[in-house]
């Protein structure tokens, strides 16, 4: 590019073409000349990148909050924090029984056939398990919330109220069990696929998604004014685990096979997300800036979910990543 638009430049190009057989330039896609040099078959993807759009990372985010809110609600009920328990169950029901199904159905290619998800039960399909986990969670969280509210407001008296309190306990327990699965199965969902950057991190993903869900649930409750030390402790725990995962992710590199995590825009999403809900949230919480720590954690949890889907799109479209993961 030293002498643009001159006879000398044209002679340079001719020389280069003669010497190297290929002349790359801006706006010119050199694919052949004479033999194509792209990886695989003309650089075409070997596996198909995910077709999922913005609904899925958002679902991962809300599903994680919902599931782990039920765990917090169970602990709050057991240790008599009724206010926290009620808020957590509202959160679980709204995020898990309203927002999550809506997002999932919106992402389907044929939303009107969403009930076909419940035609079969396949333990070897994480998507099938997820559909059943979400259904079971909703079936526990909504009656659990209703029973808890009726009990808290003392709508009924005597035996009926005792029965309600017992039912609330059972349903909240069920919601907590299915909730932990709801928050973590999403990691299994994308971990057990043919996308190299995903399956190479199949043990990290459920830990990350579950812990991000727990920290996010605590963060939302704190932002709604429930500033109790138990939630602060959970915030510390989640941010500490996320910090460890950030270190794990930077140590366990797989070269070209998972380069989508460390390069490209998708890599930046992962890094920014992990810094926000890992070290930064931990630091802010350490200095007692709880609302800021909560916001940082939530932002990180959402951004890293977006990042993981973006990583899947980049990694799935990269033939060299597939080859590298299999050699």
């Amino acid at each position: 590019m030293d002498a643009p638009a001159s006879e000398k430049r044209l002679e340079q190009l001719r020389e280069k073409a003669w010497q190297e057989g290929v002349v790359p330039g801006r706006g010119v896609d050199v694919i052949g000349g004479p033999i194509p040099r792209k990886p695989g078959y003309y650089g075409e993807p070997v596996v198909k990148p995910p077709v999922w759009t913005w609904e899925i990372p958002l679902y991962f985010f809300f599903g994680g909050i919902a599931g782990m809110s039920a765990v917090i609600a169970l602990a709050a009920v057991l240790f008599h924090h009724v206010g926290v328990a009620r808020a957590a169950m509202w959160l679980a029901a709204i995020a898990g029984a309203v927002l999550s199904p809506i997002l999932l159905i919106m992402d389907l290619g044929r939303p009107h056939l969403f009930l076909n998800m419940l035609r079969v039960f396949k333990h070897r399909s994480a998507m099938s398990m997820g559909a059943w986990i979400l259904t079971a969670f909703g079936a526990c969280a909504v009656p659990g919330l209703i029973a808890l509210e009726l009990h808290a407001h003392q709508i009924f008296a005597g035996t009926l109220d005792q029965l309600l309190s017992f039912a609330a306990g059972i349903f909240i327990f069920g919601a907590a069990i299915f909730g932990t699965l709801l928050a973590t199965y999403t990691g299994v969902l994308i971990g057990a696929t043919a996308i190299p950057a995903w399956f190479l991190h199949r043990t990290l993903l459920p830990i990350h998604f579950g812990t991000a869900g727990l920290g996010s649930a605590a963060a939302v409750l704190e932002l709604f004014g429930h500033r109790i030390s138990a939630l602060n402790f959970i915030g510390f725990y989640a941010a500490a685990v996320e910090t460890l995962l950030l270190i794990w992710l930077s140590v366990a590199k797989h070269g070209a096979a998972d380069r989508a995590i460390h390069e490209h825009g998708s890599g930046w999403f992962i890094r920014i997300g992990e810094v926000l809900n890992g070290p930064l949230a931990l630091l802010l919480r350490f200095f007692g800036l709880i609302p800021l720590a909560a916001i940082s954690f939530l932002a990180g949890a959402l951004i890293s979910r977006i990042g993981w889907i973006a990583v899947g799109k980049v990694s799935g479209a990269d033939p060299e990543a597939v080859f590298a993961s299999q050699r």
Partner: protein
Amino acid sequence: MIGEGIQSTNQRKHSYVQDRVEVGFFTDPSVCIGCKACEVACKEWNQVPDDGFTWTGNSYDNTGHLGASTWRHVMFLEQDLPKGDQIAGPMSLGDQDPFRWVFLSDVCKHCEEAGCLEACPTGSIVRTEVGSVLVQNDVCNGCGYCVVSCPFGVIDRRPSPLPDSGGAFKCTFCYDRQKSGLVPACAKVCPTESIVFGRLDDLRAKASQRVQQLQQSGYNDAQLYDPTDTSVRGIHAFFLILGEPEAYGLPPKPQVPTIYLKSAWTAAFATAIASIIATLVAFAFSS
């Protein structure tokens, strides 16, 4: 009549579906002439919609890759490698400048352990009597999980505004034709029988014979692409390839993603238990 005529398994009527015999495709690029009759026959018979016309610049291949609206795809490989003992033309520099053009008709592999079938949460994807993998279009709700579960990148969700959009599509192995004793459209039209349809056991024998024959006649890099030693446990539509699978966009060691479930679920359960314990501890110590 071409080739073996009505004696050929590609032209004969059969009763494989009734007899529950496993069938397959054997695709042999050494006799493929790149006519794309298989692509056209597939699109016409199955009424697969036109998914746009783009120039790829990849040799004579403007189809690109298999997808929701492309169930047969003829690949055109240009390689600086010798092609057997072929007689070099007057323009060739002989051994110093080898060149070969390889055509291979790619298709759904109908895996023994099919990632798409395992992943499907609606039971839309089933195994047929002849061992092929079939998507039932009216059951599929378009969740897209099969797309990322196929180790070969075959199945895809059809985007709108194409007809029947939103569902996942791939080669049906012409199950409708096979039920009536007819041969899949692509094999039926193949003029050189580069695509051979038949009983899986017959085809496997035929394929290994063909590999030997080619190696004897100078195609030193002829090999069978049928990953029987990975978790896919073999494919029902297998290929003879010249050179390495990577050049054809075929994964060298494809794995069915269900093998990753155990470690992923273990991590999930561990996280679930750790989260419950951490939460209980948090409330216990602050009460």
